[in-house]
């Protein structure tokens, strides 16, 4: 008797999955994306996990511009048929739209290798600290290229020139950062920064900054853990580690809040700094990033080889505004304002600094 009841339930369950399969196929063929998206919890609850169902759901989410949800479905479908050309036609753009360019390149046979993009940035930094460099100009030239679908490099040269009552301040920097896509959302970023500082008559030295970061894209999250080390001009080794999390609450690129925690370790002393912000995408061509940081830590951990000038002055708090406008497929103009409250260790003086920068990025 009980067996009879069980078999009835079993048949009904099977009827249900067969019906769901037919319904999802019909909705897909009718291009009824809204209804198909609405079916996703039911399909999942019925244990329906195979290529066709994930592919259909992925396309439905993609057409609704829900790229993160589409990506999750396409990644599941990929496990069932990695050779599907139809799938790759969606999966590659999904990786691109969610800014996982190297993951996209590893799947794209036609991905261009060689030169990727370049940018030129110019700006000025002003301070209200009369005993230090009150005004300094800088220029940065950067080039990104790929040597393999999984491996890309960023080279950046930065030149800084400033004047103070005690003499000239000149700094030349070379920054090299690699990006090696390991697979399954993992990317390794080793980097090295060589800095030649000449602040006559006080100091003339060359020092380095080196480290690495491990980045993981997981669903709507983007995690990054990194560590770097520097001798900061023969002042002894210093280490800094950081943990950064970016979250995408919306599937399309509307806004991306992020938070970062940093710690500086030096002679058993730990100083913490945290940074948070949001990047808002107004349209495909225009976006704005706002960031705020606080923590009284020396800010020598640099992501893209930007300024390390006055890195030894702890940053108490600061804010940044970055605005980008893409005028064509190849050209993006950007401007940034960076305002910090810093402390000069020798004079034990607090001062304010403002950096104004602007530049052009060119897709090669």
């Amino acid at each position: 008797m009980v067996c009879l009841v069980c078999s009835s339930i079993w048949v009904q369950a099977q009827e249900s999955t067969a019906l769901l399969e037919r319904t999802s196929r019909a909705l897909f063929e009718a291009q009824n994306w809204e209804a198909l998206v609405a079916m996703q919890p039911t399909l999942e609850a019925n244990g329906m996990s195979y290529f066709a169902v994930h592919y259909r759901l992925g396309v439905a989410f993609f057409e609704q511009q829900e790229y993160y949800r589409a990506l999750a479905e396409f990644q599941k479908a990929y496990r069932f048929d990695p050779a599907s050309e139809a799938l790759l036609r969606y999966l590659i753009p999904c990786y691109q739209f969610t800014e996982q360019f190297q993951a996209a390149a590893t799947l794209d046979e036609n991905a261009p290798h060689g030169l990727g993009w370049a940018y030129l940035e110019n700006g000025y930094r002003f301070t209200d600290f009369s005993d230090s460099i009150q005004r300094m100009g800088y220029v940065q030239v950067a080039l990104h290229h790929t040597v393999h679908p999984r491996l890309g490099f960023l080279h950046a040269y930065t030149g800084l020139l400033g004047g103070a009552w005690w003499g000239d301040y000149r700094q030349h920097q070379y920054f090299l950062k690699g990006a090696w896509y390991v697979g399954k959302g993992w990317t390794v970023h080793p980097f090295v920064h060589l800095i030649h500082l000449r602040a006559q008559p006080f100091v003339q030295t060359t020092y380095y900054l080196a480290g690495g970061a491990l980045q993981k894209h997981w669903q709507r999250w983007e995690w990054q853990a990194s560590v770097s080390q520097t001798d900061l001009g023969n002042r002894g080794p210093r280490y800094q580690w950081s943990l950064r999390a970016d979250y995408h609450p919306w599937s399309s690129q509307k806004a991306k809040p992020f938070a970062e925690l940093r710690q500086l370790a030096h002679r058993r002393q730990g100083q913490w700094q945290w940074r948070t912000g949001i990047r808002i995408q107004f349209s495909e061509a225009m976006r704005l990033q706002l960031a705020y940081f606080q923590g009284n830590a020396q800010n020598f951990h640099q992501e893209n080889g930007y300024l390390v000038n006055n890195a030894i002055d702890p940053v108490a708090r600061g804010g940044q505004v970055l605005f980008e406008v893409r005028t064509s497929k190849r050209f993006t103009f950007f401007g940034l304002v960076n305002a910090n409250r810093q402390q000069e260790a020798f004079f034990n003086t607090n001062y304010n600094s403002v950096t104004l920068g602007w530049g052009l990025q060119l897709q090669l």
Partner: protein
Amino acid sequence: MKLKPIVLLFSFLLSLVLPGASLEESMDQPTAFQQSYAFENQGQYSKGISVLLKVYSADSYEINLRLAWLSYLNGAYTESMSYYQKAGVLMPYSLEARLGYVLPAAAVGNWEQVVAKYREVLQIDPKHKIANYRLASIYYNREEYAASFKLLKTVVNLYPFEYDSLVLFAWTHLKMGKTREAKVLFQKVLLVSPQDQSALEGLALLQ
């Protein structure tokens, strides 16, 4: 012992709620199989499944295999793959369970599982014609011509005058740049199937 009336009452009440469950007399396996064939011939696959489930035994290879086939016909691909998998566990050297599994797996596009199953078949029987040919076709469509060539060579040596494998072997030669061999093979195809469009198209490309 006092629980028995409660269980019976509960089952009775459930049978009233669930339309598929009724107080039918017990059925033996041959009858259930016979009825399932009858329902299959009428296209009533869910009824065929229902009668087999009444005599279902988890350790019966035959019932699992039959349920897998009927589930496949019924469009319940997840369940079909599950039953074929169970049948394969019960009879570890069963080729039919593996060849059956590829039907729902291919229907839902799980081509990695299809490839894996054909590989399993070839581990048991390296000269299996269907597995060699179908796997070769998959590799050909994926433009993995060297892998396709190796499998087709086995089939064509066993069946030198069989159309499907011969024409695919000819196209594989052409894709690999072995034009002289491809021409000979396309001409052989024309002996099997005179005026064959695919062979003529291949020969035209070789002119």
